[in-house]
C-alpha cells in the first residue's frame, strides 16, 4: 500500500528550488501527482501531492525533508492524505472566469468571494496581485464553477452590486464547454 501525501512549502526564491526538491522526493522513491508551484514576489510557494513508496514511512520522509530544508531555504510541511481527499468532486456546473480590479483597499477579496459563496459558487482557482505604485491597483482573477441552477444574469447582478459597494470593476467570461 502506498501512502499519499501533500507537501506545502514556502521559501525565498532562487534558481533550482524545484529541481532540488523534486530530486529529494525522486531519490526517496516518491511519485508526484498534482502540484501547484508559483512565485509570489520574492517567495516561491509549493503545494504538491505525491505517493510515498511502501518501503518508507511518512516519518522517514519528514526526517529527510528536515535535512533538506536548510539547503532549500524553504520550510516544508507534509501530511498524509486519505484516498478520498485525492478524488475530485464532480463539478456538474458551469465554468466562468471572473476578473476583479480597482484601486486597492482592504475587503475586495472578502466582499467578492462572500457574494460567490452566497450563490454556492465554488472557486477552483484564484490569484491576486497588488501593484506597488503610489496609487496601488488590486487585481484578482478567479476561475469558478457555478451550479447549473444559477444563471449568468444572477451572477452578474450579484457581483455588480458588490463591486459597486467596493468601488471595483468586475468582468465575467462564461466558458463554453466544447466536446470535440
Amino acid at each position: 500500500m502506498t501512502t499519499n501525501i501533500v507537501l506545502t512549502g514556502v521559501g525565498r526564491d532562487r534558481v533550482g528550488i524545484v529541481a532540488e526538491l523534486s530530486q529529494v522526493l525522486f531519490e526517496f522513491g516518491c511519485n508526484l501527482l498534482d502540484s501547484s508551484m508559483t512565485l509570489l514576489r520574492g517567495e516561491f510557494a509549493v503545494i504538491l501531492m505525491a505517493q510515498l513508496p511502501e518501503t518508507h514511512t511518512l516519518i522517514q520522509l519528514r526526517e529527510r525533508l528536515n535535512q533538506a530544508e536548510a539547503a532549500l531555504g524553504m520550510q516544508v510541511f507534509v501530511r498524509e492524505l486519505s484516498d478520498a481527499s485525492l478524488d475530485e468532486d464532480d463539478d456538474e456546473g458551469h465554468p466562468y472566469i471572473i476578473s476583479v480590479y480597482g484601486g486597492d483597499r482592504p475587503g475586495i477579496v472578502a466582499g467578492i468571494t462572500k457574494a460567490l459563496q452566497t450563490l454556492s459558487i465554488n472557486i477552483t482557482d484564484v490569484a491576486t496581485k497588488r501593484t506597488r505604485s503610489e496609487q496601488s491597483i488590486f487585481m484578482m482573477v478567479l476561475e469558478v464553477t457555478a451550479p447549473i441552477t444559477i444563471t449568468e444574469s444572477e451572477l452578474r447582478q450579484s457581483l455588480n452590486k458588490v463591486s459597486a459597494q467596493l468601488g471595483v470593476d468586475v468582468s465575467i467570461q462564461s466558458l463554453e464547454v466544447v466536446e470535440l
Partner: protein
Amino acid sequence: MAILPVLVYPDPELKRVSDPVDFKEDLTATIQDLLDTMHDAPGCVGLAAPQCGVRKRILIIDASRNPKVESKYGLMVIINPIVEYSEGEVLAREGCLSLPDLTANVKRAQKIRVKFQNPQNQEQEIEVSDFEARVVLHELDHLDGILFLDRVASLKTDVFRRKRYAPKDGAGKPGEVKPGESKPDELKLKDAKTPDSKPGEAAVRSES
C-alpha cells in the same frame, strides 16, 4: 464500412504531421470509415483522420450534431485545409476524444476562412465562425500533430481533469478508444518530438 479505433494520447501517432492528399488513390472507403467512426461517438462534432491512425489531411466536421449551437454547413468532408484568414479571439473549454481525461481552456479565432478540397477534388472555400470555427481549428491542429494541450498557457488555470465525459481509465467506451492499439516504437517516439515547437506558432496566429 467500419468503425475505426480512436487513438488516445500518448500514442505517438497523434504528434505526427499528416500528409497532403494527392487524390491518386480512391478515398471513398477511408472517408466512409471516418464518417462511421464519428457517428459512433456520441456528441462528436469533428474527427481528424490521424486520430484514427490515418496519416492524411482529411477532416470530418459536423457542428450540427451539437443541438445547442448554430451550424452553417452541417456535415463536411474537408481535405487539405488551409486557413486563409482569421479574426477575433474566443476562449472556450475543449475536450477531445484523444485526451479523454482532460479538458482545457483554449483560445481560438472567432471567424476563419478556409480553403480545401472536397472528396471530388473540387476547390472549396468556407467562412465559419464561433463554435464551428473552433471545431475546424481543433481538428486542423490534429493534422499537424498539435493537441489542445499545446495551446494552453497555464496548467493551473487552463487544464482540468474531465469529470463527466469518459470513465477514469479512458478505455471504457467500445469503439471509441483503444489505448495501446499501435505500439510506440523508438522511431515513432523520436519523430513525435518534432512538432513540439508548434505552441509558439499559436501566439503568432491568434494575433494576426
